[in-house]
């Protein structure tokens, strides 16, 4: 056997080993919880039964909630794409000033948990609005708040997830070579024509990825429809599931499992559409060139800047001010002024309440851990899915979407059912430890890391990696020295999304936490539920400030990182 043959054989063994390791890992994270739910839905206690299935399918509430879910998820996605897409194009391709600061502000609302956003927006309108009272426009006591409606839910979903579209599209736009744009402009095409015929077609992968991610996020969102929909009895599938759980009768888990699978099926249809679209064309572009020279807005620059800054500040500052003002008052309904303002709520959550302190450490470690692990899994995973076109992984890629689309509480139930008993073979139990939460985070947020990385691979030319392979570099070596640096921007964008989402996560850990393993979301939610919203607001405010501080401090290292690694930096 020649030396070259040995090398090829070694490479093949390495690749096959890695591939099957990944297949096993993804199956463990996504298929196992889903499979456990299918068993619970169709064979509770090991006995096959279609009682629960029949009951769910025959209930009119199921179909009303399904229709409501579809309407709000689709409309919310359209709104998010319109906002996030427009802003991404303006902030990336034109010559507006202070782009870094703008991006930073625009991405921040992603960091406020959806239920907190919902509460803050509710306070902005309606008779209780401090802001409207200030300008004498507050409606009289008892007026209906316009946000308690289908339109209110769509609006907040759109605002919540616009940064998701923005981030994925921006990561793509950054890789756009200037030669193409300049060629178009040189040929005499107007900027709008270049946008339509060159930029947008090339941006199909990140845009479609953004749309799919956004749709799945809207579909599985619980906080917004819970706070805005319940008062109008406008139920979507996640709130219907929650309501069924509250009903607690025999068979409730089976019904909940079937409702979750229904959400999974809807999400699947969306993902398959996306997959179908992406397969039809080749979007590869070279990334060796520097970023394009920005379009000059000319006399439109000032108005456009004013417009997008006003928008970013409204969307960011209003809910945050709502949160901040509640955190400073001694009790609800007490007007906020110099005499009433108090830091007592902060003092309580920072110094007296032991669980809050533990929650900070736990949430930080678990979110960071999940983000790092997911990137380590997703970089080779994306390699096999996109460049090796591995069929098994392609299917698993679809399955990975499911845990993210399920309501968090359902994933938590699946995890309880799976891990209540000690693990087979190993004999250790992860139930009531932080590890069950880490497992749930990995399962739920895998797709948040995978999507940006896959769309990153779709856009990168493979020649460099092929050259390295011909030169005899093994897969592990290529992964570390060639592939990872190439997909680094997308990977870091993904890791960041995961960290921020997990840091504010509420519904997954709500059932999985245990003494000593509290998360921030759990503590905030506990306060809120017991009527101690001032404590909840104080803790949420600190969370936001910590996140901002973390983002800002990473900016200090920006010069040392490859260009485009931080999504909010040029």
């Amino acid at each position, binding site marked *: 056997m020649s030396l070259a043959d040995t090398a090829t054989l070694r490479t093949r063994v390495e690749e096959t080993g890695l591939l099957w390791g990944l297949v096993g890992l993804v199956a463990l994270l996504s298929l196992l919880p889903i499979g456990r739910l299918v068993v*619970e839905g169709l064979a*509770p206690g090991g006995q096959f039964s279609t009682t629960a299935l029949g009951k769910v399918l025959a209930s009119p*509430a199921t179909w*009303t909630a399904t229709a409501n879910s579809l309407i709000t998820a689709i409309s919310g996605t359209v709104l998010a794409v319109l906002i996030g897409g427009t802003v991404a194009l303006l902030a990336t391709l034109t010559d507006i000033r202070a782009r870094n600061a703008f991006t930073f502000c625009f991405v921040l609302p992603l960091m406020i948990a959806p239920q907190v956003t919902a509460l803050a927006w*509710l*306070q902005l309108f*309606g*008779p*209780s609005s401090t802001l409207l009272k200030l300008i004498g426009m507050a409606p009289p*006591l*008892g*007026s*209906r708040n316009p946000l308690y409606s289908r339109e209110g839910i769509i609006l907040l979903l759109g605002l919540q997830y616009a940064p998701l579209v923005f981030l994925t599209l921006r990561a793509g736009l950054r890789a756009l070579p200037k030669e193409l744009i300049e060629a178009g402009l040189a040929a005499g095409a107007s900027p709008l024509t270049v946008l339509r015929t060159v930029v947008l077609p090339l941006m199909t992968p990140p845009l479609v990825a953004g749309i799919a991610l956004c749709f799945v996020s809207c579909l599985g969102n619980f906080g917004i429809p*819970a*706070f805005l929909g*319940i*008062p*109008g*009895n*406008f139920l979507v599938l996640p709130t219907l599931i*929650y*309501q069924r*759980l*509250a*009903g*607690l*009768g*025999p068979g*409730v*888990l089976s019904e909940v499992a079937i409702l979750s699978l229904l959400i999974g099926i809807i999400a699947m249809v969306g993902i398959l559409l996306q997959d179908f679209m992406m397969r039809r064309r080749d979007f590869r572009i070279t990334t060796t060139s520097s970023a394009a020279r920005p379009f000059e807005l000319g006399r439109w620059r000032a108005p456009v800047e004013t417009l997008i800054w006003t928008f970013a500040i409204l969307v960011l500052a209003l809910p945050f001010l709502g949160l901040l003002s509640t955190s400073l008052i*001694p*009790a*609800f*309904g*007490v007007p906020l002024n110099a005499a*009433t303002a108090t830091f007592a709520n902060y003092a309580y959550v920072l110094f007296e*309440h*032991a*669980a809050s302190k533990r929650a900070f450490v736990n949430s930080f470690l678990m979110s960071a851990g999940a983000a790092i692990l997911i990137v380590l899994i997703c970089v080779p995973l994306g390699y096999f899915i996109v460049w090796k076109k591995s069929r098994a992984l392609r299917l698993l890629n679809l399955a990975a979407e499911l845990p993210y689309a399920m309501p968090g*509480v359902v994933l938590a139930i699946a995890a*309880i*059912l799976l891990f*209540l*008993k000690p693990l087979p073979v190993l004999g250790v139990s992860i*139930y*009531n430890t932080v590890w069950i939460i880490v497992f749930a985070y990995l399962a739920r947020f895998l797709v948040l890391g995978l999507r940006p990385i896959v769309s990153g691979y779709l856009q990168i030319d493979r020649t460099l990696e092929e050259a390295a392979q011909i030169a005899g570099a093994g897969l592990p070596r290529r992964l570390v020295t060639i592939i990872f640096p190439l997909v680094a921007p997308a990977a870091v964008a993904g890791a960041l999304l995961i960290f921020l989402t997990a840091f504010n996560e509420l519904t997954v850990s*709500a*059932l999985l*936490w*245990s*003494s000593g393993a509290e998360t921030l979301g*759990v*503590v905030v939610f*506990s306060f*809120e*539920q*017991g*009527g*101690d*919203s001032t404590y909840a607001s104080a803790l949420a405010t600190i969370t936001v400030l910590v996140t901002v501080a973390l983002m800002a401090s990473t900016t200090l290292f920006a010069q040392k990182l490859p260009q485009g690694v931080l999504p909010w930096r040029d």
Partner: protein
Amino acid sequence: MMTQTRRKFIMAAAFGALIAAAPAFAQAPSGKLVLYTSQPEKDAAQTTAAFKKAYPNVEIDIFRSGTTEVMGKLAAEISAGQPSADVLLIADAASMEILKGQKQLLAYPGAKTDGLQAGSFDADKTYFGSKLITTGIAYNTAAKEKPTSWTDLDKPSYKGQISMPSPLYSGAAAIMLSTMTARPDLGWKLFEGLKANEAVAVRGNGAVLRSVATGEKAYGVLVDFMAYNAKKQGSPIDFVFPKEGAPAVTEPVAIVKSTKNEAAAKAFVDFILSDDGQKLALSMGYIPAKPSVGSPAWLPEGTKINVMASDIAAVVKATEADKARFATMFGN
């Protein structure tokens, strides 16, 4: 030689201490105890701290969340064949009655129920009310009228100004619904009036408090202690017990049948029902189940709360249909 004498001495001293403590800790429970509770965060922390002080050898682990989550977690654990809770302390007797029906609770015939409010504990001694939490009407102090009766809520002048906790999410609200609809003088007529008055059903009592205290709504159907605690802290809110009576929940405590630490679980129940445990509830602002320990400061001297009688067995039977009817009624 020397060391041996010393060891003997220490043993004797320890033995003496044990004998001295014997009346208080007849079985001296120890080990781990897992509590699932829906008490508010602050109360849960105080309860476990006080219990640990009384029984220092017991390590107490706690899972605290809304009734829905607590019951959801428990249901999943039961389905997987191994509930990990030893004791439960949750909002309403109806949930306990369901668990009792599923044979998940352990009877504790030895529990000291002397002095407890009549009807606050299960006749088979499987669950025991720890306090009385009544539901009445809270109003923003800027509201034009002061309600005195449940039927006031149906008056046209209250239109669009009422919020209430949804029975689909809150255990206390579900009991309220079935108790009130069973009353001939109130019945579904009251809820039809609420519907006509565009009342909104929000997620839970915390959300009702928020809407009334911030002035989003003028009136709210709310539990007593939340209104009074907010009032004490300066919120523009007040509370009335309607003249027809106030539906109530008892926040019962119970032992899970599969408990691995029966001695500690029984000690926990005893502690909750003891004078010390009851005084703790009082200090948190609740009406204790044992009237002899006193009544909370917010309750005006001599007030006799008219608690609406509710038949838990009937509530359990009616609750599914009532909730469904409520959901259809308040649907758009």
